[in-house]
């Protein structure tokens, strides 16, 4: 046996790449969790919120006298009571210098602008007492016309959401590649093109619908306040609360205990968080607010909500010459944390994976009398991916080309990376060809195409279609300087520190705050490899500003790429500090030390070695260490990426469409994603699955629907269709690996990929099934009613009817039940 083989045998396998079962599960599978609503404090009071039942009105009076007299009610507050101290919910992203922000009270004072807006709060000794008294608060409203439709809202003479503003437009943002010097003149490209295809596409409003309702507990202690909140962003929340309420930042401690999902929906400074803090300060007592599901659906922020006007220009051979995008983006009634910025996260991604010579993007942020929109899984990029992948299919139809052939003709070649796009982004790495090849194989493409042909020829009432989405996304938010250039109010770095405990155990403190992702497991794998200590000896601490004082938290597929890199950088510093101590203890030169598997050894001196865990004890005792160093090998690091990372992949959906009932069913779904180096394949697979479920749900099931009066008619889980296990298919998933060059892990981010990619693949598949019947578009979600209408009456299937119009339709030929005009 050679020495080399010996060493290889002894070296423990790398942790990175292992399908480690999650550490987090140990408390989640047996109910030993610390959800915020579990928290009980002595003397704790409960908050219930009186919410507006109307979408747009002036408040003429609020009578709280009956509520104040109700049993076990401690206090009732109106907007007027808190007007002086509530400030405005912060908007951290003034996307243009002249962006109009009307201000966002946590509790309405003079007017309400969406159904569900807080108008009073009742504080009771029990949740039931507070809730009962909500019914006793008497609010008089002078009702105004609600502004609900984006296109009507920007028309001349439109009613105004905010009557002190000049229009319903918050901002107008333009990116023009010609003007930016990153592309050719767009108007010229369109003038010169052989073919121009234009479409109006709709991105319906969605609701993040995290499973754990939002909850907040505030404990006042002297002039200090501790807040537990079901939040994705305890660090951002702390800074913002300090700025809004005037409670000094160092007097605020925020704890995000176990948090039950977020998907962007808990990336917010919530009105109720501010109100809970104000009430706790007023009363000097601990308070809790936990929302009901109905409150959550109607008052937590929504996502998406865009009308997209998309034009694509091409020559006859399918060489795309230019892309023009104009968006109306629904802000809702107010601007929350990053409301106006969400469309901009997609602004640079509409070109997708294609080499476009010319590109122009325009977006109007538009106010409506609906709950504000903000981040929801993908935030801007699903909208962009949907537009480009839908319009590529429409162009393929126009040219009579195979949709995949058109994509292949225009996508960036594997040998062209790094590639600077027409939007000025530098795509880091990838290979669209191999991902597509693998996905076709996973799907069993040729067989399904043959079956599609057979069904066409036999006139089968159930038709089959195949839809593609060859996507990329921009994630790993974010290079701080880039955020600065986009006028975002903060940086995109992440912090980590590593504490080497005397017994050799390791505490890793991360500023990335997980809510289901598995940071504790993945970070342990990273550190185990870096320090050569056992996976089990590592504990990952997070989500408490007193423990993890610096952080930017978890969203935008940033945790591993930015936060994980900070952890690796901190570990490198620990090793460097330990090397100095080791050299001293081993009486050797640092240059003669080798570090492997957690042990420093002196080159050429067998037996002269010391483990990093022993060094931790040695510096704890601190009896023997060099004069010029501190007795500690702890370290911290802050990592600011220089570029985004760009995961990509090919998603293919095979869809059955019943032309007689309009019912659609996913026959098979295959995806191959390149998310760079995979730290834990189990977690990566789980993230892809979950993303697929949400992206498919946008295509098939989910829509936040408001009626003509501005009432949310999908205000419970009876009406808002979060899919169940029976509603979703089996996913065939795979990966290719092109490591990201921008971070030492090589990871690209995975949290949003499935959600960004899948929606257009599903819609393209449905259209492919019925295109020969003359269908050119079907509006999402593809309900049987809409699909049936599109097949039998043309158009895009139309509005999903609220109850009233359903009733009206019973006697008309529009009703599916009458058979229509077949």
């Amino acid at each position, binding site marked *: 046996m050679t020495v080399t083989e010996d060493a290889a045998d002894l070296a423990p396998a790398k942790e990175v790449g292992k399908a480690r079962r999650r550490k987090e*599960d*140990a408390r989640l*599978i047996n109910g030993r969790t610390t959800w915020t609503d*579990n928290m009980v404090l002595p003397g704790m009071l409960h908050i219930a919120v009186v919410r507006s039942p109307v979408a747009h009105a002036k408040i003429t009076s609020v009578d709280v006298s009956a509520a104040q007299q109700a049993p076990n009610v401690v206090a009732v507050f109106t907007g007027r009571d808190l007007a002086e101290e509530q400030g405005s919910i912060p908007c951290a992203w003034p996307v243009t210098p002249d962006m109009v922000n009307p201000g966002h009270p946590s509790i309405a004072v003079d007017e309400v602008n969406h159904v569900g807006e807080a108008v009073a709060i009742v504080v009771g000794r029990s949740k039931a007492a507070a809730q009962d008294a909500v019914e006793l608060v008497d609010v008089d409203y002078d009702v105004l016309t609600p502004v609900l439709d984006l296109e009507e809202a920007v028309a001349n003479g439109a009613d105004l959401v905010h009557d002190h503003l000049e229009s319903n437009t918050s901002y107008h943002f333009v990116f023009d590649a010609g003007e930016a010097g990153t592309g050719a003149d767009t108007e010229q490209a369109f003038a010169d093109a052989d073919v121009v295809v234009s479409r109006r596409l709709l991105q319906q409003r969605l609701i993040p619908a995290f499973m754990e309702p939002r909850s907040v507990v505030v404990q006042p202690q002297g002039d200090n306040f501790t807040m537990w909140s079901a939040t994705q962003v305890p660090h951002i929340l702390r800074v913002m609360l300090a700025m809004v309420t005037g409670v000094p930042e160092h007097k605020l401690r925020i704890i995000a205990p*176990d948090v039950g*999902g977020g998907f962007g929906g808990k990336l917010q400074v919530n009105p109720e968080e501010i109100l809970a803090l104000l009430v706790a300060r007023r009363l000097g007592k601990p308070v809790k607010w936990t929302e009901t*599901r109905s409150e959550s659906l109607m008052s937590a922020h929504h996502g998406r909500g865009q009308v997209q006007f998309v034009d694509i220009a091409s020559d006859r051979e399918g060489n795309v010459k230019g892309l023009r995008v104009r968006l109306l983006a629904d802000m809702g009634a107010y601007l929350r944390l990053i409301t106006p910025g969400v469309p901009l996260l997609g602004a640079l991604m509409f070109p997708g994976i294609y080499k476009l010579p010319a590109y122009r993007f325009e977006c109007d942020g538009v106010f409506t009398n609906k709950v504000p929109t903000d981040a929801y899984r993908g935030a801007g990029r699903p909208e962009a991916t949907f537009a480009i992948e839908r319009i590529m299919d429409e162009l393929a139809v126009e040219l009579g080309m195979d949709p995949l052939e058109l994509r292949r003709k225009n996508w960036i070649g594997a040998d062209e990376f790094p590639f600077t796009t027409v939007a000025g982004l530098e795509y880091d790495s990838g290979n669209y060809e191999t991902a597509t090849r693998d996905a076709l194989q996973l799907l069993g493409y040729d067989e399904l195409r043959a079956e599609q042909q057979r069904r066409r020829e036999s006139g089968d009432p159930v038709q089959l279609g195949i839809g593609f989405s060859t996507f990329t996304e921009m994630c790993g938010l974010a290079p701080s300087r880039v955020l600065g250039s986009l006028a975002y109010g903060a940086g995109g770095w992440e912090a980590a520190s590593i504490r080497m405990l005397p017994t050799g155990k390791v505490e890793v403190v991360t500023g990335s705050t997980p809510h289901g992702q598995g940071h504790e497991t993945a970070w342990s794998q990273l550190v185990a490899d870096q320090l050569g200590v056992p996976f089990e000896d590592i504990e990952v601490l997070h989500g408490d500003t007193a423990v993890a004082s610096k952080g930017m938290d978890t969203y935008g597929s940033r945790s591993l790429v930015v936060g994980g890199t900070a952890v690796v950088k901190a570990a490198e510093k620990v090793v460097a500090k330990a090397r100095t101590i080791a050299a001293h203890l081993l009486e050797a030169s640092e240059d003669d030390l080798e570090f492997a598997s957690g042990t420093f050894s002196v080159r050429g001196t067998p037996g002269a070695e010391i483990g990093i865990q022993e060094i931790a004890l040695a510096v704890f005792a601190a009896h023997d260490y060099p004069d010029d160093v501190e007795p500690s090998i702890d370290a911290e690091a802050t990592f600011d990426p220089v570029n985004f990372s760009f995961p990509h992949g090919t998603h293919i959906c095979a869809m059955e469409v019943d032309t007689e009932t309009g019912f659609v069913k996913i026959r098979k779904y295959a995806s191959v994603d390149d998310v760079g180096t995979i730290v834990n394949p189990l977690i990566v697979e789980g993230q892809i699955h979950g993303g697929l479920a949400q992206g498919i749900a946008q295509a098939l099931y989910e829509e936040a629907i408001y009626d003509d009066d501005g009432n949310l008619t999908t205000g419970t889980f009876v009406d808002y269709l979060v899919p169940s296990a029976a509603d979703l298919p089996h996913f065939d998933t795979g990966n290719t690996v092109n490591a990201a060059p921008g971070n030492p892990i090589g990871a690209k981010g995975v949290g949003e990929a499935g959600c960004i990619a899948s929606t257009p693949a599903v819609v393209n598949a449905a259209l492919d099934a019925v295109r020969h019947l003359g269908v050119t578009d079907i509006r999402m979600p593809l309900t049987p009613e809409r699909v049936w209408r599109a097949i039998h009456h043309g158009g895009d299937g139309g509005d999903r009817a609220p109850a009233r119009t359903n009733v009206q339709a019973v006697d008309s030929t529009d009703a599916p039940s009458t058979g229509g005009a077949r």
Partner: protein
Amino acid sequence: MTPITVRVDGASYTDDVEPRTLLVHYLREQLGKVGTVVGCDTSNCGACTVHLDGEAVKSCTVLAVQADGSEVTTIEGIAGADQLHPMQRAFHEMHGLQCGYCTPGMIMASIDLLKDNPDPSDEEVREGIEGNLCRCTGYQNIVRAVRSAAAEMRGGTAEGASNGHVSPAVVDTAAAPHVVVEAR
């Protein structure tokens, strides 16, 4: 107030409750059994699922007074101290959870499903747990977990639970030594 006596996770409790109190609120607020959670207010999500006299129920659809004289088992009582039920172990092994909020209800519903059908197909699992919503996993690994637990509880192996599933997760099925509370 109405007096009730209920056995929960093997211990007996006698309490006065408001007649309108839901079982889930009694469990959480009066008994501190916070392993069982509330996810909605329309009995759609199943997060609050417990066993009432051996049958899975959504504890938001049961009044506490209706549980008088009954035996309730929650996620906290399905395995002995420092032990795991095979279903809990399978959810862990197959990565059938992410944020974990739906997990207690999902596990309780799945155990009940296997009581009626000890060897369900993928489709039968999907239909059997359709009253329980999960927002994180896309359900695929939950289906794998339930089928894996079914195999173990029948005395077999988890073979076949992945039914041709192409996934990086099957590359490494090494044991998870950090879980110290394994039932044997």
